[in-house]
């Protein structure tokens, strides 16, 4: 699935990613009484005042805008949890796996529409910003390791927004490396000897079962 905003780079725009992230499920505390809603993606509700229920983020925001519910911030979105994550990110070169795939988009949506439901909103916001910066710096150091032999990159636990930012750059860089390292341009005697001789398979061929 590619974004519609830029055909050439097959790049999602940030808004498209936000749209995708709105399908994530959040907890809300409604203050209205309403029967269950039957959507293609599933049934949500029934809504009873002060009873916690789970809805997609877009529905939660729509209800919140009308003052019909309060959104419970996700578990990871607390000062203690985020400080832990930040520590973990700073300590190791690996990306931590404690944040959801869409943490950048979800946090932005909640900051925009439900700031009164998030405790310590300024602290949370700056923590998330720090985490994002640290993680992005790690991505850049990973990318520095590129050379002509690189054919793919593997970075664990990268989030949707982070991968979207570096995608066009990585794609073009890999393409350029591939082009300049093509064997017709560089007939490399070392590499030929480098390549391991194919292991000759001496095992007798297995008879195919009829």
């Amino acid at each position, binding site marked *: 699935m590619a974004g519609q905003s830029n055909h050439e780079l097959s790049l999602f725009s940030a808004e498209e990613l936000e749209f995708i992230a709105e399908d994530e499920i959040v907890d809300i505390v409604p203050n209205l009484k309403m029967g269950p809603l039957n959507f293609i993606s599933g049934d949500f509700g029934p809504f009873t005042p002060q009873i916690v229920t789970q809805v997609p983020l877009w529905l939660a925001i729509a209800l919140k805008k009308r003052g019909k519910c309060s959104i419970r911030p996700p578990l990871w979105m607390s000062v203690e949890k985020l400080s832990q994550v930040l520590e973990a990110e700073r300590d190791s070169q690996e990306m931590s796996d404690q944040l959801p795939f869409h943490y950048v988009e979800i946090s932005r949506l909640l900051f925009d529409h439900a700031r009164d439901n998030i405790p310590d909103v300024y602290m949370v916001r700056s923590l998330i910003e720090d985490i994002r910066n640290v993680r992005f710096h790690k991505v850049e150091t990973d990318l520095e390791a590129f050379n*002509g032999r690189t054919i793919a990159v593997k970075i664990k636990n990268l989030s949707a927004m982070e991968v979207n930012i570096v995608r066009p*750059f990585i794609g073009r860089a890999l393409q350029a490396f591939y082009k300049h390292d093509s064997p017709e341009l560089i007939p490399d005697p070392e590499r030929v000897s480098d390549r391991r001789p194919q292991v000759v398979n001496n095992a007798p061929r297995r008879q195919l079962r009829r």
Partner: protein
Amino acid sequence: MATKFSKSQNFQGKLTLVFFPKIKHLPFFIFILITSLLPSFILISLRRSPISYPTHSLNNPNPHSPITLFAVHSVSPFRRHDLLRHSSVYSFDELKRKYRSSRQKDRMAKYYDIDDIIMEEETVSVIFQKAASGVGIDPSSEMDFIETGSKVELPFWLAHELQLRQAVSVNVPSCFDQKTRLEIQADSAGVDLRSRCPFFYDFGCKIAPIVGDRTIGFLLLSAFKSRYKEILTKAHSVAFAAGSKFWTILTKEEINLYETAQSAMASFKKWRMGGPRFQIAAVLGRKRKSTE
């Protein structure tokens, strides 16, 4: 008149009645027929007569006969048409068209690539292995004749095409000379490649098999490897977006890379900062002008 013929008249009689009602009109009819066909007879006989165009070709096996190149704009349109159909004579335009259409299929994707076209205008210096006449390449030259062994600057597409016919031999362009190599080895990130050749990498890839220089490939790869790191560190930080000196030394390919990273980062920043959630199309906000 046509209604007056009797039933005994045969079918041919009907026909003749239709075209010339009376037999005395027959000479007129024949006269008109001949005069109307005369121009085409003349044309046909003209076509048959041998046209004395030079038949020396680039493919001519005789190495001593000079090759002939025509600049198309110097001949009249009528002759140009015939010349172009005359397969052994090439005009510049024809050569270029032939060259572009003879590229392999994987390169066809680049047929309309404006960067590719500009890159092929890059001049290379060649040495003519055959004498060539009818060449007005250098406007300051007194005669339109090039002797064997003369050194001429030609655009890449022409040099390549002539090289395929063994009419010229291509020299290594100046942007891949020893001086540049030493500079790249010393401090690749600081070398101003753009002023040497704006399409350094693409041009290098194309010229390497033609001049038969194996080391160009290594040069390109090592230059790109180290310059890539420089681009990477600067690409995703918006601070560098404001015009710095860094820009000016990048080749076109590197700028493309740099700009994709910059634009991805900029669009993310824009989204994060917020701003108008719903954008109104420019057409909608405009007020209609009164037509009075």
